[in-house]
């Protein structure tokens, strides 16, 4: 990490290419490795301050969880009928964010999109940490969390197995699979880079640790062959995985019979929404990070351009979902469905629905403009808006459908408490602690993939030159 005392060279942005010109295999390797290969004691102040702040939030999180386990989930604002509140809203929000990482790593690999190479490592890391933050929620939101192991199918002295028709049970399998596969996929991708770090680091401790972690990778052609196959297979598996995981999350709602939950468009709509906020979070993280670490040459404006387009596309699908719900309410001739929309438009929580429309539908329309897509402050603001908007979407789906359902006698309201907030904000502590550790010790860009890109483009130019010469 460059010391903040050093004068930063003026930034020249690249707009039309995925790589700033004039880079070589060695230069990109050095650039990325040098960010982390130096003594722990010389860690810059900025990182330390960030880490302490994240650590404090993590303490808040642990305090909230300790209170939760000892006193009970009544410290949250949930009640009957709104038995799910911040716990599930934030669970879905965090998982949704995670999906962008897998999409960038896996789906774009299958589509051979080169622009994924600079961002996929950090995006995958973001996925894993987001899934960790998300996965804690189903475990803590139960009334008796010490019995959560009953979700797992094991031969029990009770003679009982889990009930497999329940979407929550599907979640158990989906999220554990997703976490496992994400970690494995991420680790497999890391192995060649860990080998690079092993070979470049000078500290004996670092060398040993990176050496053990890289499993002895030496870049053998036979190994690369199998490695490519494995990566492709994992990508091919992760693609339906990410679609299935968020579809299964959507089934938590779609399988229920509540108006506002029992909606068939949910699986694709949720997946699109996950891509939407996931990319937004990637952008929110990437904009400051590339600045702080001088990575403008590897993460260029073209990357942001393409990411914004993906966001816009997924945002339009989400918008279609919103209009769809309004249409179904009218078309269904069901007073319950109809009232759902009336409640969203005019009920006591209408402010949240209109905020949702503002943040998710209206503000991101600026992304149609190429100029604004490549204006980083605007893009940052729009991405934050999308993250907030997607939070509101989960709020609207969960709280507005639960608080007013079939029998008007059970209509009530939901007010989040201090602990609802502290648990949520504290989870950011966990996320950033992990993320800061990641950027300190692990290359945040996939070195070998960027090398590959450099290699491809230089080979390509060389060919062009050759053919050009030949022609001339």
């Amino acid at each position: 990490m460059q010391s903040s005392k050093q004068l930063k060279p003026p930034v020249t942005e690249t707009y039309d290419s995925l790589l700033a010109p004039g880079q070589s295999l060695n230069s990109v390797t050095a650039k990325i490795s040098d960010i982390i290969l130096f003594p722990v004691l010389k860690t810059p102040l900025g990182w330390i301050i960030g880490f302490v702040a994240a650590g404090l939030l993590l303490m808040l999180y642990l305090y909230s969880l300790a209170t939760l386990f000892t006193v009970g989930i009544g410290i949250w604002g949930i009640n009957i009928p709104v038995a799910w509140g911040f716990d599930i809203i934030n669970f879905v929000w965090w998982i949704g964010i995670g999906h962008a990482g897998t999409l960038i790593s896996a789906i774009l690999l299958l589509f051979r999109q080169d622009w994924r190479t600079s961002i996929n490592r950090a995006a995958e890391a973001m996925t894993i940490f987001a899934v960790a933050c998300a996965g804690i929620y189903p475990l803590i939101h139960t009334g008796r969390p010490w019995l959560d192991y009953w979700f797992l199918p094991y031969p029990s002295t009770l003679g009982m197995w889990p009930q497999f028709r329940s979407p929550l049970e599907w979640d158990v399998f989906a999220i554990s699979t997703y976490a496992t596969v994400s970690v494995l996929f991420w680790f497999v991708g890391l192995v060649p880079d860990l080998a690079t770090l092993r070979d470049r680091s000078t500290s004996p401790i670092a060398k040993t640790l990176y050496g053990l972690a890289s499993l002895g990778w030496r870049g053998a052609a036979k190994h690369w062959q199998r490695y490519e196959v494995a990566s492709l297979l994992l990508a091919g598996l992760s693609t339906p995985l990410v679609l299935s995981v968020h579809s299964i999350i959507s089934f938590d709602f779609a399988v229920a019979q509540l108006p506002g939950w029992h909606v068939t468009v949910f699986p694709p709509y949720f997946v699109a929404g996950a891509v939407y906020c996931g990319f937004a979070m990637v952008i929110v993280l990437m904009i400051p990070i590339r600045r702080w670490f001088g990575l403008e040459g590897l993460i260029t404006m073209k990357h942001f351009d393409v990411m914004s387009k993906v966001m816009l596309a997924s945002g339009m699908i989400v918008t279609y979902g919103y209009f769809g719900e309004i249409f179904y309410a009218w078309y269904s001739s069901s007073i319950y469905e109809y009232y759902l929309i009336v409640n969203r438009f005019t009920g006591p929580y209408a402010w949240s629905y209109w905020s949702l429309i503002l943040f998710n539908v209206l503000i991101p329309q600026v992304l149609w403009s190429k100029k604004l897509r490549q204006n980083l402050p605007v893009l940052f603001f729009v991405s934050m808006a999308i993250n907030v908007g997607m939070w509101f979407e989960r709020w609207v789906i969960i709280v507005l459908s639960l608080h007013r359902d079939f029998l008007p006698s059970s209509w009530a309201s939901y007010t989040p408490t201090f602990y609802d907030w502290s648990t949520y904000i504290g989870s950011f502590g966990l996320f950033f602690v992990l993320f800061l550790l990641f950027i300190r010790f692990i290359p945040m860009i996939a070195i070998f993939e960027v090398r590959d890109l450099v290699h491809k483009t230089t080979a390509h130019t060389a060919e062009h030159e050759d053919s050009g010469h030949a022609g001339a």
Partner: protein
Amino acid sequence: MVALDSDFTHSGATAIRYSRDFADKRRITAAKPKMNRLYAAEPTPSHTGTMADHRLAVRAAEIASLTDAIAAGVGVAGVAAPTLDEKASAWVKAAVADLKANAGKSIVITGETQSAAQHALVLAINNALGNLGKTVTFTAPVAPAATGNAGLKALVDEINAGAVSLLVISDANIVYNAPGDIDVKSALAKVATVVHHGLYADETSEGAAWHINGAHYLESWGDSRAFDGTAAIQQPLIAPLYEGKTLLEVVAALSGNTSANGHDLVKAYWKTALGTDGYAFDKEWQIILHDGTVKASASASSSATLTGTIAATATPASEGLEIVFRADSSLRDGSAANNGWLQEVPKPITKLVWDNAAQVSPATAKTLGVVATDVVELSFQGRTVKAPIWIVPGQADNTVVVHLGFGRTKAGKVGDGVGFNAYTLRGSDSLWHGTGLEVKKTTETYKLATTQEHTNLEGRDEDIYPTKTLADFLHPEHHEGHKKHEIISLFPEYDYSKGYQWGMQIDLNACNGCNACVVACQAENNIPIVGKEQVLVGREMHWIRIDTYFSGDAESPSIYQIPVACMHCEHAPCEIVCPVAATVHDDEGLNSMVYNRCVGTKYCSNNCPYKVRRFNFFQYVDEETPSLKLQRNPDVTVRVRGVMEKCTYCVQRINEARIDADRERREITDGQVVSACQQACPSQAIVFGNINDASARVSQLKALESKFTMLDPLNTKPRTSYMIRLTNPNPEFSGKTE
């Protein structure tokens, strides 16, 4: 029937009996498709009022002129018809016409809060209609003539005159519940020795020199008389927990017999009363103890005739606000204020808990410029108290209704400081209502906890509470093409044709929302109370609740009450979403909640369209206090934090019945299993039984045309069904129908 400020299904010694009889006459059968018709005039909606076919909201002070009008209409000599407003006139006209058409088969009744003169006039009306001896029976008085507050006032005067040196108070919290214009507290200070006897050390015992701890009625020997004179022996269930003394023992001690115990006293009395001795008496005594009542002890009916004429009772009602005092429906006079169950059972109509309020109609609220939870200062006869406002549709305008029994300062841990003390406003000359109330707004607000925030049916009548007039039900105009279409299922149904299959039917024509089922269920199933703060969040634990809806216009709405508990759906939406199979269906049709398997994801509650499931968000059950451990039903699991619970169709009673039947090598008979709610319901609205037995009462009721299940389109196939509410409005009176 015409009820003039009479909540006869709920208040008074006759309430339970009248509830049952009234409900019986509301039920129609194929053989007897006839219903009674009820006109009710009252200042605020009451249980009886919600059952009425024609309900008129009228101030308590104007009941008298209404009665005069009816008296004049049916021809009571000497009473002139007063002028009434249009609505009241029309109502009276219709009532009078119906009464005259049903002379000898009608009844006019007025409530305990009305004056003696009013009662006399009502008797005269019944007399004019020829009801005496037919629908109105007389017996010798059962209770000793009460002196009421006249006696209390006289006592205080005597004390102030220095005439009393020893005062023994038993079970009378006169410092707390005396009307505001009688200063009992300073009077007591003037008595040399005050001896207090009661269950609690309360406001009155504070100034007493001696306190004798009383025995609870369930720990005591004694006797009593029902309203019809039937004598019963009060038998204790346990020996006094805290060595309390009954009133019998205290009085005996005062007469010099300090070693008497209640049992001997009672037995000795009845020996004399029955006039038998030796073995014959012992045998008779055992029979009485077994039966509970003394055979043939009901009073004989006597006849009465009216001599002379009755004067009109109405005095011109003054304009301005009137205040109406009512005993709280669960706390009564306040002696039960320390009882958590009674504090938490939702008040009828308002569904408030843990508080009383100054109830006003929507129009009056607007006139006063207040909204619900605004705090106002109520001033009456120079006395003031602060109270929060609550709005009650269907209440008479310019009436403020307050409930007694709150604002106690020395009730105990549970009851202290709950609500405001309406006794301070009460005057000894206007115990139940008075005019000249002043209401002043303050800037404060006060959070009121209610278990039901929303009381509008939102156009969902057909799925939740369909009503029909009797005429329409018996002669449907056209078949409306509306044959209930069968919902096609994608999978084969379970075979429920064998064995016992439990089901329940609730008759909405009989339920008046008295809450007996709610408390009975709480007692039977070890349901905890959660306190006001938790009810504010929305976490009350009652397994059965009475849903109250207002329908029609806010000034004279129809008021619907529905008991709702777990429906035990055959297609239970809760069962499929539980990830650990903590809620499953047993082979007798019950939706079983397996507490020890529940992990607490709460998905089942989210998927329940009836929202009958309750969750232990905290450790609500007090697992420490020894006396509470004694209280609990040992046949029912006590739930811990983090576990979902709900109505079980009293599965412990089903199992007990099964064990008894097995032991006797027979089948479970109809009526052997009685759920707690069914057992407590005074009007027999709830019927439970085996739907596979065609002769069971529940099966016969379910076969009726009038059966409906709630939220039918969801195809949950609930085992609990209802009988739709039929109303019997006067076809010529198009003004107001229920």
